[in-house]
């Protein structure tokens, strides 16, 4: 018998799955929201997305070359990081910002830890946090989303506050009415009422906000696809969103307990994008059943606390970054029970 046969440990058949397949599937799921962003914010959104992706892939390739590692910049993970970073900046930012943000996300968020699989925090969110801390004015000026059909350049876009910004300042006024004129308090109340009446716009995406976070419906279409593909589960996003909804219903109102508007809190800001696409990041979220539940609940609690009493109007990205750091501990605390349980004397 001259022919040599392959010998290896079992199993000998495998699911037809790979890391690039997962990454590119998530990228694909994010495409509808990107198209929506270009429709609402104009071609500038497309430029920001492209610059962020090119910068992310180039940074990863360059660093892998410098570190003399095998080149895996095309495995889709860098593209996904760049894409998510672009989705997390305002459409009016100068075009160098997505480039810098992606560089930071890949270099400091991922490569210094050893590359794919070893980063403790979501690189895209770390990049966003870096941009927000360094150039807060650029990052917090939002343009109104009106269909532009690609004719209006970025320069003369109208700026406006995001719904969560409006809510935050209005609630600030209502919380201390004695410091404001009756006129101002009345306006604040009206502003909140107006917000609550425009839920359909929030759902479709006709609001100010970051590039990829505004259109709930388009994000949900992608999320449904990922769930069908089983690349994201229900545990993290549903507990995350559910916790925010519950807390904002109980504590989110201005007229006492149980007067909040949970639907508004779900649809506004980056909650849908964060809960379905960033909190579910495989590398930085827990692997156990209960771990994922606690992770989602923790994200929801921190998000709500920041939105309600923190300095920022929005807290999704910080909540995810903070919970990312807890992930190894959550995994350790929530180890699954071995089949049949342990005997006491062991």
């Amino acid at each position: 018998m001259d022919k040599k046969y392959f010998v290896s440990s079992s199993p000998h058949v495998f699911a037809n799955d790979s890391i690039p397949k997962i990454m590119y599937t998530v990228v694909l799921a994010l495409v509808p929201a990107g198209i929506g962003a270009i429709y609402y914010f104009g071609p500038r959104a497309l430029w920001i997305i492209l610059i962020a992706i090119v910068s992310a892939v180039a940074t990863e390739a360059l660093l892998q070359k410098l570190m003399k590692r095998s080149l895996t910049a095309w495995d889709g993970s860098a593209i996904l990081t760049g894409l998510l970073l672009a989705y997390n900046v305002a459409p009016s930012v100068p075009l160098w910002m997505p480039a810098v943000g992606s560089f930071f996300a890949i270099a400091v968020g991922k490569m210094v830890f050893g590359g794919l699989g070893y980063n403790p925090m979501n690189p895209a969110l770390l990049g966003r946090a870096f941009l927000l801390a360094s150039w807060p004015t650029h990052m917090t000026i939002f343009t109104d989303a009106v269909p532009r059909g690609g004719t209006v350049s970025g320069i003369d876009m109208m700026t406006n506050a995001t719904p969560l910004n409006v809510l935050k300042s209005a609630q600030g006024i209502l919380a201390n009415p004695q410091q404001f004129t009756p006129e101002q308090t009345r306006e604040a109340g009206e502003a909140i009422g107006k917000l609550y009446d425009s839920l359909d716009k929030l759902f479709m995406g006709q609001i100010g906000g970051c590039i990829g976070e505004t259109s709930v419906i388009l994000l949900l279409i992608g999320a449904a696809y990922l769930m069908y593909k089983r690349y994201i589960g229900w545990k993290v996003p549903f507990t995350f969103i559910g916790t925010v909804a519950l807390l904002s219903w109980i504590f989110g109102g201005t007229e006492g307990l149980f007067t909040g508007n949970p639907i508004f809190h779900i649809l506004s800001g980056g909650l849908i994008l964060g809960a379905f696409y960033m909190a579910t990041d495989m590398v930085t979220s827990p692997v156990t059943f209960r771990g994922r539940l606690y992770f989602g609940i923790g994200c929801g609690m921190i998000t709500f606390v920041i939105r309600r009493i923190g300095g920022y109007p929005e807290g999704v990205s910080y909540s995810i970054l903070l919970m990312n750091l807890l992930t190894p501990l959550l995994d350790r605390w929530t180890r699954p029970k071995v089949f049949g349980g342990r005997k006491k004397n062991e």
Partner: protein
Amino acid sequence: MAFLSKSFSGGIHPPEHKKLTEFFKIENCPPPEEVVVPVQQHIGAPSRPIVEKGDAVLIGDPISESGGFVSVPSHATVSGTVKTVEPRPHPLGTKVLSVVIENDSENKWRQDVGFDSSYQELDKKEILRRIQAAGIAGMGGATFPTHVKLSPPPDKKIDTLIVNGAECEPYLTSDHRLMLEETEKILRGMQILVRVLGAKTGAIGVEKNKMDAVKALRQKIAELNLPYKVYALHVKYPQGAEKQLINAIVNRRVPAGGLPMDVGCVVQNVGTAAAVYDAVVYNRPLIDRVVTITGNGINKPQNMLIRIGTPFSHVFEQCGGLKENAGKVIMGGPMMGLAQSNLDAPVIKGTSGLLVLNEKQSHRQEEQPCISCAHCVDACPMGLMPKMLGQFVKYERFDSAQAYNILDCIECGSCAFVCPAHINLVHWIKYGKLKVIQKQKKAS
């Protein structure tokens, strides 16, 4: 969800590939000119050869004797002359002492094999003696001596005998064919097993992808007026793993580190039940078994009744030979089977299948870093964290691996199957188990 249907939690759905052979009747494989019968075909102490070069043997003659209680003898599977007794290639990958018999093609059986009308009156001890003397070891693939499993300590009361017809490994159809073609033999064997164990009842578990077998068994049970129940189980791997099968059928969980008898059950494969019938009623030792020869790398996939000791190369010749692009030969199924390097190795009692994959299917893509996707944790039917076990073993943290219950792994391969980073988790875990057990032995 385990409590909603007859199944267990975790598990995977690999492509079945059973169509290749499931409609083919069991064919007789002509015995080769020379059989190589290893003295070790079971878990436990090796048996001791009792024949020498030049001895004449008949089919069914013992050629070795049990090396202890947890041991079974081997038998001559052709009539002829002992050519030599020496170490020969074995499916486990090493060389094992084997008796090589030259076939005289006369096919002569030893005298005392034949129908024993008094079998109904045999006592428990005699039945167990016959089972051991026939050399029966678990034919699902684990090859644990059957008489040992049938002799639980007196404080363990067995109420249910479970016969395993799940055949959850992809590609394999030998149990399926056996259930269709030897339905009565399996049920009669079951009767004997239930009697020996003093069990209240018997149950058969069959995956739903073999409804014809379920139907055949149910029909025969009604015909023979037996009190046994056939369970049609969810098609999910590893449904046929002992603990998962018990979980699905009687909804009891064998404690970690425990045995089925801790929850009042004994599990036997359908092939074992049939062999027990032959051994007790006909005094016929285990000299052949049904093997599925299958895969894209073989010209004529089929199910065959093959004499133990028949070299794989001879079997493949009967199946039209291997294809040009054959890349990997596996004894057993694709999930837990053993890759073979030498086709001189023989069919043994645990050979449920011979799977030949083509070159393209034979090697796995390069390993990539773990991205903590948790697919392995979700798939593990034992409630383990394969990702962590793999990493612990890689960095030689065997104590941590033990704390994460590495010894409870049943090596079913579900984790490695689903891993998108192509990490050979079972490979690491097997190595880690070995190290942990070595350490334990040293300590005690």
